[in-house]
């Protein structure tokens, strides 16, 4: 496969890979590195790429596994993730967000979720994947995905309300 061909295949979902990586690794730089790593791995396998039913699903699974491995090795070596980049100062973001503060809170709340719920929420509410796709990606049954997702949504909502009431009181 030629380089341009490869880029055409990869372009539509590279941002999804990055967002999933960022969801798991939190830091933008780490997510960028992870995404780059994944793309290079894909590139090195590009002659076999036609065999995969969905390159996107394959790449997403790779990203998930890669990031989870990263997190595991980080925990093992007792390295704490340092992240101070909650706001992504892009202009379009500033314009869209009226209640910037509580929106940022959603991100922080999502960080506190267990990894599986985090990913379920990311894949469904941000990327709008179907339950079947998410199930395959996370190696769960679609029913289990629903349960995780339901829990995640409820938790985010409860914590938001908590935060909101706290602010008022």
């Amino acid at each position: 496969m030629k380089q341009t061909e490869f880029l055409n295949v990869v372009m539509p979902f590279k941002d999804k890979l990055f967002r999933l990586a960022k969801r798991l690794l939190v830091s933008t730089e780490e997510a960028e590195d992870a995404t780059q790593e994944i793309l290079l791995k894909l590139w090195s396998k590009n002659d076999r790429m036609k065999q995969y039913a969905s390159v996107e699903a394959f790449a997403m699974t790779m990203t998930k596994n890669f990031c989870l491995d990263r997190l595991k090795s980080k925990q093992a070596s007792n390295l704490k993730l340092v992240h101070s980049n909650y706001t992504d100062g892009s202009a379009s973001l500033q314009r869209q967000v009226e209640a910037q503060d509580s929106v940022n809170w959603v991100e922080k709340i999502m960080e506190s979720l267990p990894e599986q719920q985090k990913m379920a929420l990311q894949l469904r509410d941000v990327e709008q994947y179907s339950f079947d796709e998410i199930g395959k990606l996370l190696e769960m049954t679609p029913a289990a995905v629903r349960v995780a997702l339901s829990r995640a949504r409820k938790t985010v909502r409860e914590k938001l309300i908590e935060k909101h009431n706290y602010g008022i009181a």
Partner: protein
Amino acid sequence: MELHNIEKLIEKYLEATTTVAEEEALKAYFLKGDVAPHLKEYTAMFTYFSVAKEETFTKQVPLKPRKRNYKWLSVAAVAVLVFGIYYGNDYREQKEAEYVLQQTKKAFSLIAQNLNKGTEKLVYLNKFEEAKNKIYKTN
């Protein structure tokens, strides 16, 4: 969409039984503004989700270095081999010729040495000449 409907969808949403289309409808409602006060918290959620989807990967990926064409490497190797054999043969022949030349020179010098020895011995013939001259002079 009516508030009643939205409330129903929200309930389904929390149980994760909504379809993608229904979630889209919810998102549209909350992003439009003008949200019922008791549903305010969802605005933040749906706003965040749509903002999060805007993020893009902007880093350049250096794809070139990975793509090394090993085909040309083998061609180069074969070329070097052929070259080596061709010129190597020439070189060997030259060496052989030089060796033969050396041997021949050695043989010639050996012959020359022995010849010189022979001519050294011929000096004695002069004695004979001297003696003969002496005899003729006295006569």
